[in-house]
């Protein structure tokens, strides 16, 4: 019996069990990361905006995406057009990836792919 191969199989089966657990949890808190990644997939651009601009967007009727409320502290994530974003003077572009800068933002504005 080849111990090295069996050890690799054991580790792979552990990962498969974790994957199954993550799948069962997909609609709960554990799935929040997938849902967050999913909205970012559709974003061509991501911008960090300040509280005042986020408040103004909300008072203008822009509704933050529900995913942001799943995090603590919550993130206000807005899906905007470029024209809507132009009114946010505090906007600062950030790479669309799971980097510290994006994850620490409390208010995000996303522009979808064309």
């Amino acid at each position, binding site marked *: 019996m080849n111990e090295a191969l069996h050890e690799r199989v054991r580790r792979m089966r552990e990962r498969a069990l974790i994957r199954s657990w993550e*799948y069962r949890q997909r609609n709960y808190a554990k799935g929040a990361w997938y849902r967050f990644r*999913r909205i970012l997939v559709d974003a061509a651009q991501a911008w960090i905006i300040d509280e005042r601009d986020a408040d103004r967007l909300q008072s203008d009727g822009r509704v933050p995406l529900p995913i942001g409320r799943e995090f603590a502290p919550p993130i206000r994530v807005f899906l905007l057009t470029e024209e809507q974003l132009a009114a946010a003077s505090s906007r600062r572009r950030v790479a669309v990836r799971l980097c510290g800068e994006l994850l620490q933002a409390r208010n995000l504005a996303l522009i979808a792919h064309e």
Partner: protein
Amino acid sequence: MIAGSEVPNLLEPDARSTLIVSKDLDIAVPVERHAAVKARLREVQGLRRSEEEPSVWLPLEAELLEVNYIGMQTRGEPAETYVLEDSELPLLVFAHLSLLRPGKPLDIEGLAVPVPRPAGLLLEKLLTDRSGEKGDRDLLVALAVLLVSGSSDLEELETQYRGLSAELRFATRSGLSALSLLEPRVQMPDPTPHRALLARLMARLENVEQER
């Protein structure tokens, strides 16, 4: 069949091999061909079997690559990964390699090199269960395969995706979402300029979900 991350290197024009993905070569052995491959291995020169892991063959010369023989089921659904015990050539039979379908062999300097069709390889790489650097590289290999895929390959991908369990379909989409957000790496394809393509593929897979 060449099965691992070296495939997109071979699929580049003239097999230019610009991606640095691994320093070994995975050769997938269909379990029903195990005895025949084992017999041919006795004729191979320039490689010797690793004592620690006998499915790995080590190069005797610097210009040769290490070869990793891995097992694949060619029939049925992706099942559990297992060890095919053999005193001479034991194989780790990877569950998701059953997604690979033989493609048109490449002709490289007169040698017919069997490679998988892009659709199955793309799915298999998106389904990586590895994390960290290795998992990211699997996903970037998936991108490299996607970039050489045509519309018929994507149709085939969709067909194969439909046949997966709900859990594996979700894992495929999860892998795709992670790929879309990866940062560039040296000598690997950069997802950034291809994020719209990845978003379209995601939408296509989600359409399948809505049709179910």
